[in-house]
């Protein structure tokens, strides 16, 4: 297998992984672990059919499907490539995408997640145990019994706070050193101060100690943090690890000798060989060879472009039919791919940092906590005529009651519920604030090739040709790797056609395929070459002797494309189509989908310009695109979505990734984001109302630990339930 020799190990980052990992105790495995994303799995049947099928596959030791992450991990011998697994899954009827198994960030993410969950667990168990003792105190235990219970509570609470509270202390310290004020500062102060005052009270056999409230606060806040973390981490890892389409390697030709080198090592003037099916690694000029080039990902053009000696080619294009020798004019940083990356970076830095509703709420709320309790302290110190202990107690009570337990859960609970629902429908949210931004969108811009369409041609007029033409065309088409030929062969086979006995078939790279049939010359290829009149639509031309036939093609619509456009228009969004493809193709698609506002032959800069013009007019734009030519637009838009089949650069630039083939989750996401934003607002109001009611109680000195515990749990539970109402 030639692929196996070109590719590095299946786990490129393994060598880079730190040896300090706890896992290092295990012996190094010669076998590779492959990860494949399978967005279509949903049931027990999927699990057993996939796992059983792969278990029978040669070279696979074991396969396990994670239904929550819709991810298949395979333990296989070194020779097995992800492509083999993906091909096998596709035969079973599942779309699959390769993921990079070795990235350090994933193990790091998992470690962080478990770390947070462990702190949640520790504070949860501590909370329950302290609560057992507290209930006895609230029920009327007093005297030495109460003091004993308080001290035992302190014994549990202090180590728990020291361990489980670390994320807050660390963040608060970081913010303090940077001179910022965020939510973690007041929280840390509240936790530590309450703990100390409670300990002091217990030692002096005071009536009130807030140990359970402190631990409960930590518990609920950690739950919010964990939800928030999980929503971000799951999305981030999956989007990152969908492996890069392009291998950054090239075949260099030196005195007729081929050697595989990194693209970064190439210099201008050197010659590289690009085999059919390979991606052109550099900008350059064709030195030798004829072929056709697929520029869809760079420009959005569906039709391959002819390339021969002297033609310029750019990095990122795919060579289709014949081998090409390309003299490098620009590699690495100077190539057109890199210039695109620079444009993306510019667009991203221009996009002002979006402040989420949670950040705004926290910024407004954070200072009020210490101010209120400090005011309570001063006022009570003055009223009571210098009773320090009373003033401190009331200050601590108001501190702990104002602490934003529900506020910490209000947003993550909704985001988790919404992103979970959307994930099940096949949409992955990479950025937590994307949901909020999506809710504000009023204009949706679609790319054409690869987004609204599958980017694969489908023949349209097969039934208009005589049987002999069909069978000759099939014989010729099967001999070519050109996308039109392959699409034609596939469609004809599906119709049950049989290939004619064409002899001496040869492929003329860049022109087509020819052969002899019943003593006549037959050709399938470009119009001038076969001697046919060019058609206005995309077509492959067949010549049998002197008679010619034109097989026309159209680009297949992505499933759900019609529905998504209709649904978005029904929701009152203005839908636009901007494509780099030629006018006729774009016009045709716009008409089919009912989009009146379209633009063809747009350069990447034009797309980004259209978006910034709309932003200038006060519109908020959702960009849906997949190509390299979309990346600038994707990063310039208010919020962006790309399909999983998109280039990794496009996926990286977008906020959400469509996992399946179907486009319809886009409309669903827009609708869901509106409801989610409504729930978030409701939750913020709810937690504010709890504070409005209970803060005065605390300030007037009526608050007891029982009140604090009651308010915290009831407000946390009510915001969580409200989030779960999301449909």
């Amino acid at each position, binding site marked *: 297998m030639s692929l196996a020799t070109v590719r590095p190990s299946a786990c490129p980052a393994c060598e880079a992984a730190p040896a300090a990992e706890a896992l290092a105790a*295990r012996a190094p495995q010669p076998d590779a672990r492959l990860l494949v994303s399978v967005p279509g799995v949903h*049931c*027990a049947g999927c*699990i*057993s059919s996939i796992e*059983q099928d792969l278990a029978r596959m040669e070279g696979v030791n*074991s396969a396990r*499907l*994670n*239904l*929550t*992450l819709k991810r298949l991990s395979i*333990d296989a011998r070194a020779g097995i490539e992800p492509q083999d697994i993906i091909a096998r899954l596709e035969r079973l009827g599942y779309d699959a995408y390769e993921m990079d198994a070795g990235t350090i960030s994933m193990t790091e993410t998992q470690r962080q997640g*478990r770390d947070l*969950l*462990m702190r949640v*667990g*520790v504070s949860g*168990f*501590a909370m*329950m*145990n302290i609560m*057992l*003792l507290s209930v006895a105190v609230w029920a009327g235990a007093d005297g030495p*019994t109460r003091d*004993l219970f308080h001290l*035992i509570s302190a014994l*549990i609470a202090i180590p728990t706070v020291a361990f489980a509270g670390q994320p807050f202390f660390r963040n608060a310290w970081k913010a303090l050193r940077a001179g910022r004020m965020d939510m973690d500062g007041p929280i840390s102060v509240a936790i530590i101060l309450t703990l100390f005052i409670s300990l002091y009270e217990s030692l002096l056999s005071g009536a009130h100690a807030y140990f359970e409230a402190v631990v409960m606060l930590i518990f609920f806040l950690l739950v919010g943090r964990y939800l928030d973390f999980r929503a971000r981490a799951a999305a981030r890892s999956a989007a990152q690890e969908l492996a890069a389409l392009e291998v950054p390697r090239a075949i260099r030709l030196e005195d007729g000798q081929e050697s595989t080198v990194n693209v970064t090592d190439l210099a201008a003037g050197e010659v590289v060989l690009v085999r059919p099916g390979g991606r052109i690694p550099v900008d350059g000029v064709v030195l030798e060879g004829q072929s056709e080039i697929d520029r869809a990902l760079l420009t959005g053009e569906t039709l391959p472009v002819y390339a021969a000696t002297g033609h310029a080619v750019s990095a990122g294009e795919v060579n289709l039919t014949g081998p090409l020798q390309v003299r490098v004019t620009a590699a690495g940083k100077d190539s057109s791919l890199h210039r695109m990356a620079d444009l993306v970076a510019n667009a991203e830095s221009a996009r002002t940092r979006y402040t989420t509703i949670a950040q705004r709420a926290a910024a407004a709320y954070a200072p009020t906590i210490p101010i209120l309790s400090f005011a309570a302290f001063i006022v009570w110190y003055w009223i009571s005529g210098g009773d320090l202990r009373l003033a401190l107690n009331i200050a601590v009570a108001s501190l702990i009651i104002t602490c934003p337990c529900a506020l910490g859960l209000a947003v993550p609970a909704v985001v988790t519920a919404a992103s979970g629902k959307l994930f099940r429908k096949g949409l992955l949210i990479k950025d937590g604030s994307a949901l909020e931004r999506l809710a504000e969108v009023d204009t949706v811009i679609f790319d054409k090739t690869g987004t609204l369409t599958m980017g694969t041609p489908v023949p349209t007029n097969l039934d208009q040709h005589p049987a002999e033409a069909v069978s000759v065309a099939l014989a010729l088409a099967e001999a070519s790797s050109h996308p039109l030929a392959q699409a034609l062969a596939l469609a004809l086979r599906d119709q049950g056609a049989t290939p004619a006995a064409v002899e001496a078939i040869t492929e003329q790279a860049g022109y087509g395929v020819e052969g002899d049939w019943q003593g006549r010359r037959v050709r399938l290829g470009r119009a001038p070459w076969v001697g046919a009149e060019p058609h206005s639509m995309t077509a492959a031309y067949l010549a049998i002797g002197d008679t010619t036939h034109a097989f026309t093609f159209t680009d297949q619509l992505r499933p759900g494309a019609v529905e998504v456009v209709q649904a978005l228009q029904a929701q009152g969004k203005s839908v636009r189509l901007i494509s780099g493809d030629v006018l006729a193709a774009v016009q045709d698609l716009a008409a089919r989908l009912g989009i009146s506002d379209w633009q063809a032959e747009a350069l990447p800069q034009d797309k980004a310009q259209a978006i910034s013009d709309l932003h200038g007019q006060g519109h908020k734009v959702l960009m849906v695109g997949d190509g390299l030519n979309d990346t600038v637009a994707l990063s310039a838009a208010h919020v962006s979505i790309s399909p999983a089949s998109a280039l990794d650069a496009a996926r990286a630039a977008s906020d959400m990734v469509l996992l399946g083939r179907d486009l319809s989750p886009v409309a669903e996401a827009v609708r869901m984001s509106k409801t989610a934003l409504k729930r978030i607002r409701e939750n913020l109001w709810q937690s504010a109302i709890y504070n409005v009611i209970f803060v005065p109680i605390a300030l007037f000195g009526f608050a007891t630990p029982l009140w604090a515990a009651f308010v915290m749990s009831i407000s946390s539970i009510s915001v969580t339930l409200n989030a779960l109402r999301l449909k």
Partner: protein
Amino acid sequence: MEVLAILIPVSLFLGFLGLAAFLWTLRKGMYDDPEGDGQRILDTRYDDKPKPVERDE
């Protein structure tokens, strides 16, 4: 009230037991795929005999 001398250590011990069990399940990765684990019950492959133990985990 002497019974407290027994009950409190017992409740603390049980709490620790629960915590230890939770940490054990966490380390074993039992929360990695809650949905899949729920669906796997419906799998009929190991109804007659248990699944053979794999060498890792």
